[in-house]
C-alpha cells in the first residue's frame, strides 16, 4: 500500500545489489535508526535502557551469530552459551592483563579468541551432521563452562569465580563500563557495535561466503560437487558465528551485568538464543532482532501480567506459570508460522507491495 515502485529502476549492478533497493524501505530504516540513536537514549527510562534495551541488543547479536551458523550454514548448534562465555572471559583476561588496551580491541579481541575456539569445536562438523552435531556441540557448551568454572586463572583466582568488568572509556573520558558508566553511554556503545556487526553479517550473507553457506545448508552434496570446499565453508561459519557470540558475551559481561559467573552462560542461555532464531526466523538478519525482542519481552510481560490483571499468585507459582505459557507460546508460534516472525514480516511486506492485488 505504502510502496511506490514505478519509476524505480537500476542502471548499475551496484545499485541493483544494494541492501535496500526500494525508497520506502530506506526511509523506514532511517526512521528506525533515528529512533534507536536519538529518541530512545533521550527519552527512555533507566529501566528500559538497562533491563530491556541492553539485553535485547546483546542477545540479538548472539542470535545473529547463531543464525549465521544454524540459519544460513545449516549447522544446528547448542553451544552458543559456551562461546559467549569464551568471549566474556577472554575479554576479562585481556582487559586485566593489558589495562590500557582500548575497549574495542578488548571486545573484538575476545571475539577473535571465541572464533578460534569455535573453529576448534567446528572441526567435527565435517563428519557429523544434524542432531548428532547438535548434541556434539553440547560437549563444547559443558566443557567450556566447566573450564572457566574450574580454573582460577580465568577469573584471576577470584574466590567467588565471578568476574567484574574494570572501568573502561572511549574517546578518552566517556566511561562505558564500571560503576561510573552511564546507561546511555553503555547503550550507545552497545548499539553501535551491534549495528556495525549486523551490517557485517548482512554483507557476508549477500556475498560469496553467504551463498556458499546457504548452498551447504540446502544441498551439501551438490555444493561440494560445484567446488565449494566443505571444511573451510563450515569452519568459516563456526568462526564468524562464534565471533559474534564471543562479542555478545563480552558485551554481556562488561556492559550489561558488569560482573558474571560462568553459569550465566549455561546451556539454558544456548536454548534461549536458539529460541530467538527459531521464533525470529532462521536465515534472516531481521529475524535475530525480532526473536530477541520477543524472547526478552515475553517473560517481562508474563511476570507483570498477574499484577496487571490484579491477581496475586505465589512467586514460585508465577515462575512455573511462566514456564508453561512460554512453552505453549513456542509451540503456538511454530504451528502458526514455522519460519518465524521474519517470514510474517516478509509476507506483510509482499502484501503491501502487491496491494491491492492478493498475489
Amino acid at each position, binding site marked *: *500500500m505504502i*510502496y511506490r515502485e514505478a519509476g524505480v529502476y537500476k542502471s548499475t549492478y551496484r545499485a*541493483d545489489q544494494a541492501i535496500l533497493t526500494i525508497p520506502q524501505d530506506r526511509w523506514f530504516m532511517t526512521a528506525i535508526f533515528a529512533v534507536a540513536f536519538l529518541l530512545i537514549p533521550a527519552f527512555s527510562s533507566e529501566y528500559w535502557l538497562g533491563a530491556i534495551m541492553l539485553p535485547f541488543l546483546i542477545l540479538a547479536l548472539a542470535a545473529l551469530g547463531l543464525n549465521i551458523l544454524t540459519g544460513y550454514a545449516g549447522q544446528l548448534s547448542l553451544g552458543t552459551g559456551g562461546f559467549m562465555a569464551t568471549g566474556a572471559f577472554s575479554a576479562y583476561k585481556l582487559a586485566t592483563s593489558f589495562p590500557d588496551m582500548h575497549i574495542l580491541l578488548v571486545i573484538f579481541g575476545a571475539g577473535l579468541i571465541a572464533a578460534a575456539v569455535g573453529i576448534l569445536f567446528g572441526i567435527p562438523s565435517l563428519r557429523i551432521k544434524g542432531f548428532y552435531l547438535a548434541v556434539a556441540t553440547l560437549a563444547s557448551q559443558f566443557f567450556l563452562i566447566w573450564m572457566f568454572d574450574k580454573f582460577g586463572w580465568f577469573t584471576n583466582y577470584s574466590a567467588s569465580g565471578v568476574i567484574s568488568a574494570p572501568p573502561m572509556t572511549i574517546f578518552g573520558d566517556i566511561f562505558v563500563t564500571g560503576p561510573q558508566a552511564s546507561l546511555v553511554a553503555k547503550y550507545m556503545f552497545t548499539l553501535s557495535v551491534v549495528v556495525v556487526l549486523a551490517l557485517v553479517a548482512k554483507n557476508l550473507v549477500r556475498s560469496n561466503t553467504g551463498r556458499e553457506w546457504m548452498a551447504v545448508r540446502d544441498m551439501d552434496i551438490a555444493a561440494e560437487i560445484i567446488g565449494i570446499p566443505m571444511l573451510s565453508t563450515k569452519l568459516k561459519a563456526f568462526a564468524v558465528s562464534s565471533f559474534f557470540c564471543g562479542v555478545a558475551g563480552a558485551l554481556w559481561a562488561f556492559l550489561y551485568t558488569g560482573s558474571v559467573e560462568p553459569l550465566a552462560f549455561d546451556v539454558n542461555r544456548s536454548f534461549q538464543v536458539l529460541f530467538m532464531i527459531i521464533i525470529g526466523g532462521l536465515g534472516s538478519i531481521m529475524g535475530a532482532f525480532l526473536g530477541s525482542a520477543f524472547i526478552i519481552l515475553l517473560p517481562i510481560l508474563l511476570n507483570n501480567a498477574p499484577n496487571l490483571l490484579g491477581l496475586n499468585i505465589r512467586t514460585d507459582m508465577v515462575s512455573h506459570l511462566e514456564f508453561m505459557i512460554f512453552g505453549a507460546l513456542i509451540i503456538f508460534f511454530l504451528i502458526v508460522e514455522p519460519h518465524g516472525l521474519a517470514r510474517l514480516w516478509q509476507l506483510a511486506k509482499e502484501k503491501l507491495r502487491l496491494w491491492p492485488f492478493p498475489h
Partner: protein
Amino acid sequence: MSNKPQDTFPRLLAGHAKLRPNHTAIREKDLGIWQSWTWSQVSREVQTLAGGLASLGLKRGEKLAIIGDNRPRLYWGMTAAQTLGAIPVPLYQDSVADEMAYILDNADIKIALVEDQEQVDKLLEVRDRCPQIEHIIFDDPRGLRHYDQPFLHNFEDVQRLGQEFNQQNVDYLNNEMAKSDGDEVAIMLYTSGTTGKPKGVVLTNDNVIITARNGIVREGLTADEDVLAYLPMAWVGDNLFTYAQAFVAGFCVSCPENGSTVTHNLREIGPTYYFAPPRVYENILTQVMIRMEDAGKLKRSMFNYFMEHARKNGVKILNGEKVSVTDSLLYKLGRFLVYGPLKDSLGLSRIKLAYTAGEAIGPEIFEFYRSLGINIKQLYGQTECMVFLCVQPDGEVFADTVGTPAIDVEIKIDDNGEILYRSPGVFHSYYKNPESTASTKTPDGWVLTGDAGFFDEQSGHLKIIDRAKDVGKLNNGTMFAPKYIENKLKFYSFIKEAVLFGNDRDHSCAFINIDLEAVGNWAERRNLAYSGYIDLAGQSEVYELIKDCVKKVNKDLSKDSRLGGSQINRFIILHKELDADDGELTRTRKVRRNFVAERYKVLIDALYSDLDECHVKTQVTFEDGRTGLLEADVKISNAEVYSVDNITAASGV
C-alpha cells in the same frame, strides 16, 4: 514553423548532443540492468554506424530495412540511414518470410539491419526473391558464428568499418547531412493493408517532424518525459511517439528486456507519456479484475466500493470539475488505499499523458482509467498523415469521440459521410504506386481517410462510425456499419473478436471469438470443465453468456434510428481464434473481413439458413509454422431483437 537547422533527424540529434549531451537519450534493459546512452553517446554511435553503412555502399535515396524488437541499435540504424540521406524502412518483426519478401522487394531494400538469428534466417530464406539486398547486418550474434556468407555483418564490425571510413572521409557525413532538408523523404512505413497488399507510405522530414512538434506543443511535453518503446517499430505510432517526438523534445526512450518482461519493465520505468491501442488497456483491465477475483472478501468489497466512488467522481476530479467536499475527501482516501497502489503496480502512476487510438475503446474501459486519475485521451489518425488528425483536448474527453482537429489540421466530411483532411503531415505518396496515391490524394491536397464519421453537434468532436467502404445497406435499406457494431460487441470482456455480415442481406449475423482468459475464468468460477478453446466455445452455457451480450447490443442499437435495423439476428461462436498466422487478422490484429468471409463461407451460408448446427473443416497454422486440419461442429444461436421504435422484445428469426 520548422526553423531551418532543425528540420532533419540528424540535425535534431546534433542539436541535442550539443544542448543536453549528458541527458539520457535511450535505455535498454539488458543483462539485468538498464543500460543507458546519453544524447552525445547516441550521436557518436550513429556517426560510426552511418560511416559503416556508407562504406557498405548505402547512398542517398537507397533503402535500409530495419527488422526486430525495439532495440537502441535498430533506432540508431534509422538515424544513421537518414544521416546519409538514405531511407529507413521498418518491417513487422513477427511477419513470416513470405510477407517480408514482398515488402523487401517492393521497397528495393539494399541493406537490412536486423535483430538476431531468427530474422537473418528469414531473410536468407527469401534472399533469392529479393536479389537487390546486398548486405545484412545483425545486432545479436548468438547462434550466427557459423554463418559464413560474405554479405552477413556483425553490428560491431560495421561500426568498426565506420570508424575507419569516418577517419578517411572526415567531412563526408557532414556534407551528406547538409544536403538533406525538410522536404526530403525521412522514412517509409508500410500500412498493414486491411485489404490487398501492403502499401509503402512515403513521409518527408517535414511530415514527420512538424507533426511531432505540433503534438508536443499541444500537450506541453518536455525533455523529461519517460516512454517505453514496446510497440512494433514498423508501426507509425511507435515511429512518432518513441522516435520522432523523442528526437524533437529530447526525452528518454526505454526498450524492454524482451516480450515476456514488458509488464514488469513498464512498472520499473513508470512512463510519464504512454501510448497503447485499446486492446492493451483492455487486457490490463481484464488482468486487474481477474487478479482481484482471488482477493479476500473484505479487500474486494473495499476495492469495489472505492472503484465505484471513482467511477462517480474520478472523471469529474480529473476534468477539474467541482465535487462535494466529502466526495473529494473520500477520493483522496481511495487514492491512498486503492488508486495509488493500483496505478503503481500497473506502472501507470507517473503518467502525465496517455493516448489510445487505432480502434474504438470500450466506454467502461476508458472510464476506468480516467476515473483512476490517469489522463488517457483518444486520438484519431492514420499512417498517411503521421498519426495526428484529431486529439481530445484536456477537460473534454469522451469515450465515443476522437476529439477536435490537431494543430494545422483541416477536416471536412463529404456528402457520403467520408472524412477528408489536409495537414502538414500529409504523406508524399505511396511508394511506386501512383494510382492509389491519386485515388487517395485529391489534386488540392485533401486526403480521403476511407472512414465514415460526423462532427458531434454539442461537443464539436469528430465521431467515427466505420470504414466508409464497409458501411453498407441491408436489403431493407437501413444503414449497416459492421465495425461500429463489432466494437459494441467487443466492449464486453467475454468477446475478443467479432465479425459482422449483413451487407445486401435481409438481416445481420455475427461470428464471435470469445476471450479465452475471461470466459475461462468465468467457467472455472462455475466449475465448468473445458479442455481448450474449441471445447469452451462449444458449451451451451457459454452460448447463453454471449447471447446475453448480443441482446444488450441489440437493445442499444434499437435506440438509434439510423442503425436500429441492423440488429444481430443470429450468431455463432467461432471454433477457432482468428489468427494473423492464418491471414485472418493483420499484423496489427485488424480483421481481414473479406478473407474471413471467403474462408468460412460454409458458416455464413448456415447462418442465413435455418440450420442450428454446421460442420466445418479449417486449415490452421501452428506457432512452430506447421499446418494442420481443424474439424468442428459449430452451433448456431438466435438472438433477441428489439423493434426500433418502442423497445419490446420480439422473438428471434
